[in-house]
């Protein structure tokens, strides 16, 4: 009874803490500017089902795609087992679903196989990071914390799956011994091989079984509360992030409505632009970006496919699209902390541009969309880069000199070079 109350209190506390932190993330995302991503719901749902549920963009790299699919499928399906654990925990029952008989055996058997594939995949992932030292897991932005974060996630998953399998091994042994309370049920295709390693005494087996049970469930809820601090948050945010994808052709950049009104007024003196809120052009800080950019930042799991495909990064430039996303997230987290501590209007004198992202990075982009194509969850680093260029050019007039020359020519001659518009048709001259 004490254990049941402890269990219920623990679950309530864990869910409450997660909700508290999750709400903060939502609040931070809502600091962004408005953008309409609620149109075309049917198409959006399809993108989400394909890209997030179906993982269609992962297949571009088959080996990690398969390993990731094991972990993804394993985690989703094994969560059915968590439902049983919850019910057992609350009511003090044991294997409450075992009444399902043959189907229950099938479920537990499948969970064991999945648990093993998850475990094996995570071990291979660790090998890829630490032994094979795959290039995209390195880079300037992959400092100590991002590397540790990845290790914590993989090790936690390995421990959780191990606990699940050891628990089953002990349970099966106890069932065979006819120990009280241990209802017979389940199939154990994997954990049967672990039975030999376990002691024979009933009390030790019960201690192991209970220990693993508690470790597993405490681990799951601790992991849940780790998510908002981790790149692993993608396991939740990938779904809304793909739903709110940019659906237009990748080559199309949005036209800024505020500029349209001003240009119209310039070209046609009779046009009176509607009253617009005074806001800056482009983005200097995270609040100047739209909320979908900010959702992108929290969704990024730092896999580095974007940076690996980026022509600027490949040729040794400072730009790394992954760093743009991580910087945006880290700055947004900082802004959020400032709000918690000092109130909504506090200004710490810092900004995303310059304090996090340098101008050299911003100007190295070729807008080729390799990064947006590579991202398995439709994150758009290019959108953020363009907004920062807009700020630099339109608010500060600080474009690189050669671009100012190009824009001067464009303004005066209607071409990016210093040629006369009168010569524009010379190509058709016959000899």
């Amino acid at each position, binding site marked *: 009874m004490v254990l049941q109350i402890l269990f219920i209190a623990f679950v309530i506390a864990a869910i409450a803490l997660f909700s508290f932190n999750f709400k903060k993330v939502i609040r931070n995302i809502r600091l962004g500017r408005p953008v309409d991503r609620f149109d075309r719901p049917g198409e959006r749902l399809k993108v989400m089902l394909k890209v997030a549920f179906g993982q269609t963009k992962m297949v571009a790299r088959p080996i990690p795609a398969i390993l990731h699919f094991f972990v993804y499928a394993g985690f989703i399906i094994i969560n059915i087992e968590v439902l049983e654990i919850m019910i057992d925990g609350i009511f003090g029952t044991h294997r409450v679903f075992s009444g399902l008989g043959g189907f229950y055996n099938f479920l537990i058997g499948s969970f064991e196989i999945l648990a093993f594939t998850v475990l094996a995949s995570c071990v291979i992932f660790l090998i890829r990071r630490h032994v094979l030292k795959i290039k995209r897991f390195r880079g300037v932005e992959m400092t100590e914390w991002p590397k540790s974060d990845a290790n914590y996630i993989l090790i936690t998953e390995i421990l959780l799956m191990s606990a699940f399998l050891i628990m089953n091994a002990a349970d099966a042994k106890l069932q065979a011994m006819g120990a009280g309370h241990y209802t017979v049920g389940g199939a154990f295709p994997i954990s049967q091989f672990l039975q030999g390693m376990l002691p024979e005494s009933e009390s030790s087996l019960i201690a192991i079984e209970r220990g693993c049970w508690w470790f597993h469930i405490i681990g799951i809820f601790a992991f849940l509360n780790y998510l908002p601090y981790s790149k692993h948050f993608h396991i939740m945010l990938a779904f809304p992030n793909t739903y709110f994808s940019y659906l237009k*052709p*990748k*080559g*199309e*950049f949005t*036209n*800024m409505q505020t*500029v*349209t009104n001003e*240009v*119209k007024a*310039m*070209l046609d003196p009779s046009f009176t632009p509607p009253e617009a809120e005074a806001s800056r052009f*482009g983005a200097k800080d995270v609040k100047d970006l739209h909320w979908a950019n900010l959702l992108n930042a929290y969704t990024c799991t730092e896999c580095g496919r974007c940076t690996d495909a980026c*022509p*600027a990064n*490949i*040729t*040794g*430039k*400072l*730009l790394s699209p992954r760093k743009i996303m991580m910087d945006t997230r880290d700055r947004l987290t900082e802004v959020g902390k400032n709000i918690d501590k000092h109130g909504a209007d506090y200004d710490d004198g810092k900004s995303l541009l310059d304090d996090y992202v340098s101008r*050299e990075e911003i*100007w*190295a982009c*070729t*807008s*080729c*969309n*390799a990064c947006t*194509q590579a991202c398995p969850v439709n994150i758009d680093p290019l959108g953020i880069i*363009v907004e*920062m*260029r*807009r*700020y*630099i*050019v*339109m608010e500060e007039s600080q*474009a*690189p000199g*050669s*671009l100012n020359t*190009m*824009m001067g020519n*464009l303004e005066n001659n*209607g*071409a*990016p*070079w210093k040629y006369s*518009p*009168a*010569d*524009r*048709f*010379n*190509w*058709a001259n*016959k*000899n």
Partner: protein
Amino acid sequence: MTEQLNFEVPTMADLIARGEEPEILFWVGCFGSYDERAQRTTRDICKILHHVGIKYAVLGTEESCTGDPAKRAGNEFLFQMQAMTNIEVLNGYNIKKIVTGCPHCFNTIKNEYPGLGGNYEVIHHSQLIQQLIDEGKLRAEGGESFKGKKITFHDPCYLGRGNGIYEAPRAALEMLDAQLVEMKRCKVNGLCCGAGGAQMFKEPEPGKKDINVERVEEALALNPQIVATSCPFCMTMLNDGVKFKDQNENVDVLDIAEITVRANGL
């Protein structure tokens, strides 16, 4: 000079003066108008239009930059000024359909002009060529033979990833009976030439290599006789890269319009 034109290129002003309307407007673009290398492609697109007898026109000196490089550089004001001025000209002539000689112009007019009042059916010249091949109006006959020649195609970002057009430019190459080879980074995974996003008009940021050299090395590893593309930006970058690798004697960088004209002896 065989590459010079032996016919007049009609302008919109000419057509209107004669009380006529074109079937399609050929939007030449700044590169196609001023850059000597790109002018050859422009004339070849005209040769194709002339050969198949499509009623077309150009804007001539009334054309101006679409504003693409200004927009990619972050200057939305300059972009929209250019866009609205161009839209006024195009709408004034009641233009319905446009073919562009450049993926950047194509992307801008097709995707970014509608929101500013410019609604046209816009195609890139690779789509026009594909359509003419499908209709049997272009056949790869009567000109230079490309049989057995090794050709690789470089996907321009604003045509490929930007607008999902990968097959149209390849159609012009597939009819040649040549040996088409793909680079590892092709189609959705194509590597940029390094000129997009207004990079064409500035020095690259410090790094260990120029992007066009990286791309040309990938192309040259296939030992092609021809590196084909369909963008004047890519054309410039690839040419510079091939020269940098001292391969300009052995490898031609050609637009698919030029290849089509040669194959048809136009």
